């Protein structure tokens, strides 16, 4: 009897859930555990990882040079997020309130670049902003400047690049939130004497704040890690936490230190997501 039951209920469930579980264990849990363990390991004089427990890696993270980069990375992420929000909110509003055919076009304008490799698009920006790039050529042709302006290799360029690459992650949750707004509520607000500004702050913003939150998280967190943007547009002058990690695994060849950095970044991410949930955010809407 119990054998039959096993066959009739447990077996199909196992065949359905089993492969997914195995996948998750081998490709998510094990690597994460591996990184976690490694962050407590030491290296010998030949830079080989040896399994000897130490907290030195975490202590090393408090190095003053690193602290400067954390601050810089957080500032870059903050400004990239702010830029995305300032541009993304009106844009998302426009998409959700315009008529059908234009809506599709605007939506595609966000989605199609998203399908193209972001590394290539970032190189595109480099060409565009470079000393002999189109923008400088145009500026010189218009006699606004005699010699090329240095637009690349600074924090501004990195912020621009981050905001550019992550823009869809801001627009999509905002669009979803604004789309849910009931048009008649905006009319009700105007009807009761609310001017456009008052309607925005009293009716629109409070009801789309979850979209703002999830958009900000989706831009802020990757901004801390997208090292290639800082590399290509920042030219080493505006490193983010991602650059530190990448360097430890590549040229620095100090994997335990890189692992410790990664663990801290993951912890910060989880903390932000927790905060987002505490503020009433829906975890599902982060999975755009």
């Amino acid at each position, binding site marked *: 009897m119990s054998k039959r039951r096993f066959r009739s209920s447990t077996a199909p469930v196992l065949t359905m859930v089993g492969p997914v579980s195995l996948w998750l264990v081998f490709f998510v849990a094990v690597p994460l555990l591996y990184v976690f363990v490694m962050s407590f390991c030491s290296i010998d004089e030949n830079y080989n990882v040896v399994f000897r427990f130490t907290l030195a890696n975490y202590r090393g993270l408090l190095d003053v040079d690193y602290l400067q980069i954390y601050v810089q990375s957080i500032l870059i992420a903050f400004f990239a997020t702010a830029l995305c929000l300032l541009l993304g909110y009106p844009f998302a509003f426009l998409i959700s309130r315009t008529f059908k055919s234009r809506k599709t076009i605007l939506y595609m304008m966000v989605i199609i670049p998203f399908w193209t490799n972001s590394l290539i698009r970032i190189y595109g920006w480099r060409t565009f902003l470079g000393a002999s790039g189109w923008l400088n050529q145009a500026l010189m042709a218009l006699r606004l400047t005699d010699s090329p302006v240095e637009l690349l290799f600074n924090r501004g360029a990195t912020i621009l690049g981050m905001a550019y690459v992550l823009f869809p992650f801001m627009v999509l949750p905002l669009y979803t939130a604004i789309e849910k707004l009931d048009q008649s509520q905006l009319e*009700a607000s105007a009807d009761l004497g*609310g001017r456009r500004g008052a309607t925005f702050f009293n009716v629109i913003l409070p009801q789309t704040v979850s979209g703002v939150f999830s958009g900000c998280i989706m831009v802020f967190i990757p901004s801390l890690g997208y090292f290639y943007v800082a590399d290509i547009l920042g030219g080493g002058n505006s490193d983010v936490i991602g650059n530190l990690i990448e360097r430890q695994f590549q040229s620095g060849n100090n994997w335990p230190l890189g692992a410790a950095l990664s663990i801290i970044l993951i912890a910060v991410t989880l903390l932000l997501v927790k905060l987002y949930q505490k503020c009433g955010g829906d975890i599902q809407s982060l999975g755009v």
Partner: protein
Amino acid sequence: MSERALVRLRKVNKFYGSNHVVKNFTLDVQEGEFLTILGSSGCGKTTTLRMVAGFEQPTDGQILVGGVDMAEKEPYERDVNTVFQSYALFPHMSVFDNVAYGLKMKRTPKGEIQKRVMEMLELVQLGGFEHRMPAQLSGGQKQRVAIARALINRPKVLLLDEPLGALDLKLRKQMQLELKRLQRKLNITFLYVTHDQEEALTMSDRIAVMHDGMLEQVGVPKEIYEAPESKFVATFIGETNLFEGMVSSVEGDAVSVAVESGAVCGRAEGFREGEIVAVSVRPERVQYSLSPVEGFTIQGLVKEQIYVGSVLKSIVVLPNGYEVRLERLAGDALPADGPVYLYWQPQDARLIHPRDQEVYHAVETAVMG
């Protein structure tokens, strides 16, 4: 009288693209009255209301509220407030904050807001609900909040767009009476939109019947019901029997009309022999006899009798297939086995001049055979 009207719509037209939604609409709403715009869905009544509120702009024509042209006025500059069909309550605000919204927008002092909101909630019988969120309210309660929120600014006119549409029948009846009570008590002008003729008849001081973007007739409920001026109004408000025919003789106000199935008569002024006319008789006015009655030659067979409690509804089929409806106080049934003669008191029939368009159709049908 009309110079003092509170809301005046003057030859208002509204196009959506090439779609002519409101056609040459002229209407005066008097101060303190309960006026209902009645029409089937898609007739342009909601659009008309939205133009008064300022959510839509007329393509041409003029709208005045309290003598002021509304053309350049934003919704928030108008002394009118709206109760929306979907309530449109702010879901993130408590009942108190919803009702207080209009006062906050007008920068009313805190103490006064507190006092007026509580009074208003008391008035709509929602005292004690001020901390609830809209999601925690029933449909009827949401409706009351929507009404309180719209009334708090003491508008010159309250616009109501099918506000009871989402409520069940019993609650709707109750809210109808309550709205009427509120309107009398506050003495605010109500401009009400509905497709429900019974609702319109119950609540309104006057009814404006709208059809296909045009105003068909304005009048007190009794006029609308008893003296319809068009075939549409006659059939839309209540049940009626419509006979179309030609005036065969006129003697004073006694008019005889030849219809397809025989002769009928009515009493009316201003008809000439040979004119095309429609005769409307309410089911409760049609009588029957077993022998011919002077002036009437229509007879038919009883097809069906339905007993619905207080009244007996009967259907008599005329030789041309037309079905005449009768409604009598329950009691004697009509004889089911032989022909009955139908008649009515001449003053109970309403003679209607067909509109030009209808005449055109009638002539066309006659000529085409």
